[in-house]
């Protein structure tokens, strides 16, 4: 471990060296004096953050990638051997055979496809609702933001209690008012994921609402007035002034919500409490592979594939949604 850390750190120093080397060449080309002292100062100032990112972000990623090529078994760490692409092959085979991983991908895909527009749409609606100076708006802002401050585990338990299958559940008591018999929402294959989506969107949208609100205040009032004079109705003003004004924020929110949604794990894990077809997601699957089946190597390979997938989709989103360079 120490040796590999030192090797990677040496690579980092090499990168620093290369940066200095190319900077010196560039300075010479433009007949400018290269201030080596300044470069060293800059690198020294960068060092704490770099070290932090290195030890807590890059190193774990590289280790995880490394494990993906081994048969690392949690209970037998000393018997680890290099197995090449076997883990990746196994993952693809499981998908092809329609195993748990295939179900996890399907569930995660459903979750992402529904929760991203739902959560962002809800956040935008709430932000538009709260974006005025009327008295009392602040109360709504606090109410909508409150779920963000509560722990995921707590809200998952809260929703579990609301949706519990017994007749004492809040939702079932409510349905009973209309004579509808008690339902077991979280054990039903058709509705379980739907309620996980609802709980996630409800908890997450407050944060995005806040970001949208700050972006909305950045859109100048005169633009709306100009649009009114130009003949736009309220919906056209939203389409032609608000949305373009929110575009940079929207891109950021789409990407972050998408990445967050791909990693969904806590709600399906805590709200349903059973590893079942209806609630496995990719993260839940990886967790199960490590802590139930002890297959760290295999799980790392799946994690690596997932990272590549999320990265690719994010790049595509940036390309299509991002600001076009002139």
């Amino acid at each position, binding site marked *: 471990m120490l040796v590999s850390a030192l090797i990677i750190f040496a690579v980092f120093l090499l990168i620093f060296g290369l940066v200095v080397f190319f900077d010196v060449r560039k300075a010479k080309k433009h007949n400018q004096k290269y201030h080596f002292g300044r470069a060293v100062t800059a690198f020294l100032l960068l060092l704490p953050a770099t070290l932090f990112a290195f030890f807590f972000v890059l190193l774990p990623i590289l280790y995880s990638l490394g494990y993906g090529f081994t048969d690392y078994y949690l209970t037998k760490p000393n018997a680890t051997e290099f197995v090449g692409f076997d883990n990746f092959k196994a993952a693809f085979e499981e998908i092809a055979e329609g195993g748990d991983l295939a179900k996890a991908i399907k569930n995660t895909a459903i979750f992402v496809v529904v929760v991203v527009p739902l959560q962002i749409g809800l956040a935008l609606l709430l932000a538009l609702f709260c974006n005025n100076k009327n008295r009392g708006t602040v109360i709504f802002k606090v109410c909508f933001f409150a779920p963000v401050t509560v722990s995921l585990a707590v809200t998952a338990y809260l929703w579990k209690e609301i949706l519990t299958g017994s007749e004492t559940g809040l939702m079932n008591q409510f349905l009973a008012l209309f004579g509808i018999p008690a339902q077991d929402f979280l054990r039903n294959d058709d509705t379980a994921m739907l309620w996980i989506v609802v709980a996630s969107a409800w908890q997450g949208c407050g944060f995005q609402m806040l970001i949208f609100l700050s972006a909305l205040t950045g859109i*100048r009032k*005169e*633009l709306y*007035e*100009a*649009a*009114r*004079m*130009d*003949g*736009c*109705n309220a919906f*056209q003003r939203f389409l*032609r*002034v608000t949305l*373009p*004004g929110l*575009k940079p924020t929207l891109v950021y929110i789409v990407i972050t919500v998408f990445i967050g949604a791909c990693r969904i794990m806590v709600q399906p894990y805590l709200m349903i409490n059973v590893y079942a077809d209806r609630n496995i997601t990719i993260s839940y699957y990886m967790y199960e592979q490590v802590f139930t089946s002890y297959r760290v190597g295999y799980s790392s390979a799946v994690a690596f594939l997932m990272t590549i997938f999320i990265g690719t989709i994010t790049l595509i989103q940036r390309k299509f949604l991002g600001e076009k360079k002139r």
Partner: protein
Amino acid sequence: MAKLLLSNICKVYPSRDKQPSIFKRLFTKDKSKLKKPEDFVAVKNFNLEIEDGEFVVFVGPSGCGKSTTLRMIAGLEDITAGELYMDDVLLNNVDPMNRDMAMVFQSYALYPHLTAYDNIAFGLKIRKIEDTVTDKDGNTKTIKRHHTKAEIDEKVQWAAEILGIKELLGRKPSEMSGGQCQRVALGRAIVRGPKVFLLDEPLSNLDAKLRTSMRSEIVKLHQRLGTTFIYVTHDQIEAMTMGTKIVVMKDGVIQQVDKPTDLFLYPNNIFVAGFIGTPQMNFFDVVLKGDSSKVNLTLEDGETLALDAKKMRKINPEYLDNEEHNCVLGVRAEHLKIADKGINAVLSIFEILGTTTHLFMHLENQEKEFIVATDESRAWVHGDKFKLFFDEEKIHLFDKESGLSILEGAKK
């Protein structure tokens, strides 16, 4: 054709201060101590008739209600009381989009994500136009349709040609200077061919040189289009050089509505007299005493000016009763002449501006300064004493208490 009539227009903003709490109201014995929030009256009884094709300028200091009035005409502010008519149609509750007016904002208000072309074309793309079509049976009927691409392009190119911005059409607002942005904003307004143009301090963000050139371009545009223009500014030079009719406002109240020259020559009150003209009109507190033939004005330092009433503009007979009346004498800097006889004045400082020189003087034993504008060029020395001559025909007299002019106004 667009004739506007503003009848008793008022705008009141409710106070943002909080009412005293219910406990305070219940337990304060002396109710007069409870401070009630007062509403803010931005515009008060605004009456104005604007003929078709006029270039009307609303001018006044900051906070006088000129922009509020313009925004009420545009429909961006509600009218608290009074009526606004365009061609005899009541507009009070008509949405801005249906008023057929175009507005140019101080901050240009160009859509930052659109190019100059798309900014100009924006209104055309949104609005529908009426068109008559003939169906297979030969019946003609009126339909509403959007402009075609070719129509939009033709109009945008026409506006760009007039404003000289053809080469800017592909640029976004962030890639243009303030003057270029303002031209695009003007283009966006003219391209729709509205009945009325509303311009809210459109030149305030430009530098002095650009402002002068844009000023003449807007006047040319008005002459070319022949549409009604309503222009808001705090700059009296803009008002004087551009408007065919000027509305001077203060504290939400119209002070005077007149042609530029009449406003300069025959101000209704001290405010208008002081606001219009550069440098500002000089004011002296005087005591007026006289009859229909001779008028004596006694200045604060005791000097008396004997004026021939027949040479002056006609004075309100109430003041010609041989009694003493407290008045304010107003004389423009260019109407005070250095002469052999007249009132004694001392030179404090001077500003040589090229063709003219501004002499800052004060009466002997008085500290209050006034300005004399002279074409004379000589070696001015601080503390030099001069005698100043008043041109009787060009002096202004105001009642000290009411501030209103006691001289006859322009013959209409």
